[in-house]
């Protein structure tokens, strides 16, 4: 409730229009049909049982509206939820963020806009866990390459990664080539395809 109102205010502050704010999965489905929104933001938990209705609804929407960008907010870092979401549909235009990120307002809105643009955004915490889970092949990577990998999986562009790590774009591109090569992943240029390749590797 509180969060919903806050989100509406936040999005308005950044010049976006909220066409509908609903409180349950049923309302979400109806609102999507009624308003055909540019993006859906939903919580994992929803009434009536407050378990994972929101995630279920999002997974279902991924199947019924494959082109609809969806961002799922989660209370917890659960790679399992992220995996379910990514496995529904082709993995584009989808985001899975820790609810805390909403507090980093500018970053949150930026993530939302990347998802609308067709990107894939996975919460850094989730990525960190996925990276930790797949230890053995990742041991071949250098520390810097691992840093780059985590940022790639978050859906960052080369320029953004370069900015964050304070290195050149060319250096980033080289790191990424090395990573893809070491992990035996297909070379990909498009940013979200790159993310997908990495995520596919991480959750396999």
């Amino acid at each position: 409730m509180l969060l919903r109102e806050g989100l509406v205010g936040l999005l308005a502050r950044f010049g976006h229009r909220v066409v509908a704010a609903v409180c349950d999965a049923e309302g979400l489905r109806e609102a999507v049909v009624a308003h055909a929104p540019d993006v859906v933001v939903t919580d994992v938990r929803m009434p009536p049982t407050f378990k994972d209705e929101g995630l279920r609804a999002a997974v279902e929407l991924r199947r019924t509206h494959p082109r609809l960008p969806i961002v799922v907010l989660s209370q917890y870092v659960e790679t399992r939820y992220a995996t379910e979401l990514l496995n529904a549909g082709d993995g584009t235009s989808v985001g899975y963020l820790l609810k805390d990120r909403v507090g980093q307002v500018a970053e949150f809105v930026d993530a939302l806009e990347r998802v609308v643009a067709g990107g894939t955004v996975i919460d850094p915490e989730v990525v960190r866990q996925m990276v930790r889970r797949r230890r053995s092949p990742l041991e071949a990577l250098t520390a810097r390459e691992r840093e780059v990998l985590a940022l790639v999986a978050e859906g960052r562009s080369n320029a953004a990664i370069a900015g964050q790590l304070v290195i050149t774009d060319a250096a980033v591109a080289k790191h990424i080539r090395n990573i893809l090569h070491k992990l035996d992943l297909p070379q990909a240029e498009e940013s979200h395809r790159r993310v997908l390749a990495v995520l596919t590797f991480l959750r396999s």
Partner: protein
Amino acid sequence: MWQALARPGYLLSGWPLRSVAYLAVTGVTGLLTLLVTAVSLAAGVLLSMAIVGVPLLAAVALLGLPVAALERRSMRLVDATRRVPVAHRMPHDPGLTWWLRTRFSEAATWRELGYALLFMLVLAPVDLLAVTLGVTVPLALIATPVLLGTVGEGEQVNVLKAYAVTSWPAAFAVCAAGLLALAVCGYGLGLLAGARAALASSLLTMAGNRTADRVTELTRSRVRLLDAFEAERGRIERDLHDGAQQRLVALTMMLGLARLDAPPGPLAKQLERAHDEAGRALGELRNLIRGIHPPLLVDFGIEAAVADLADRSAIPVDVTIEVLPRLPRHIESTVYFVVSEALSNMAKHSGATRGEVSGRFVPEDQTHPGRPGILLVSVRDDGCGGADPDAGTGLLGLRERVSVVDGTLTLSSPPGGPTRVDVEIPCRPLPNSE
């Protein structure tokens, strides 16, 4: 009853009449029960070839229930203070099936059936005979002068059809003897009724079986308590999630927005600090909630929750858990708790470089119905061993937690390693889970 018998005014009190009423009630119902049982048994045996007789025979086995219930009630006629507790358990679920299942599986039902047999074949006939003789004989004697004056026309009347009385003095003597007999029978019937009630109540409450029932009941209530405890944790977690956590998220959001609008300067610095602080509070609250009631366990079960635990472990941990059915909540949460503790012990003390968690569920053996399936979970590491269950409370706590759900925990940790914790918990999967 016994105190009443000893008091001088006994014969003039209500007690002799109550004894008569008690014996009459039990005597008559005993005969009726005998009749009903005989008819039901005969019909049941005859019809059992046509299947329909079988339920009838089964119903006869439940005969003890109404008989014992009636006995408990009528007993109060002669012993107002005695309360024979009902030894039957409450069925766990509503519905006839559950009721029947509970009744047929408890000792009280069979004890009461035994009592019912004794009651209709021995006790009730004795009651009926005693009450008939004890009331009619004295009354017949007392009525002799009246009978002599009316039926006998002042000349002769046969007392109890055996002894001829021909004169008025003799008639009055018999009448006096009748009064005496009435008094004797009043005491006699009182004694019999008191003894009968005492016998019935001791047969309907047997100490040994009561203990066994009590143990079963306690075991069940322990599991119910554990379930209630789990539900309560779930509620607390939900309250924190829907309350404090939502407010904190909203707060960080507001602070984040305020930072956008604040002009650079000391105010912006303060806002930044407040924003960071709120973010940290949120992180701490999230960890707290996970400790109370891991959401992954609730939503996806043991495999996912244990895999998540392994992901969070500082030591690399391999997880091989076969597909498990969903198990009762208290079982899942026990397993989660054990694995979580074992992994944190591993990280703290073992010095291991690698750990492993494995688990599988052996379903109920169809050749031994009634024996539940077994959940087997082990946590191993390649560390230095030497874990001592008596040294710290951690392992002891684990063992207790497992024993509450009737499981066992075995620890093997020789000095030099490796350490291995094995848990076995008998349990049944939840219906419609796979």
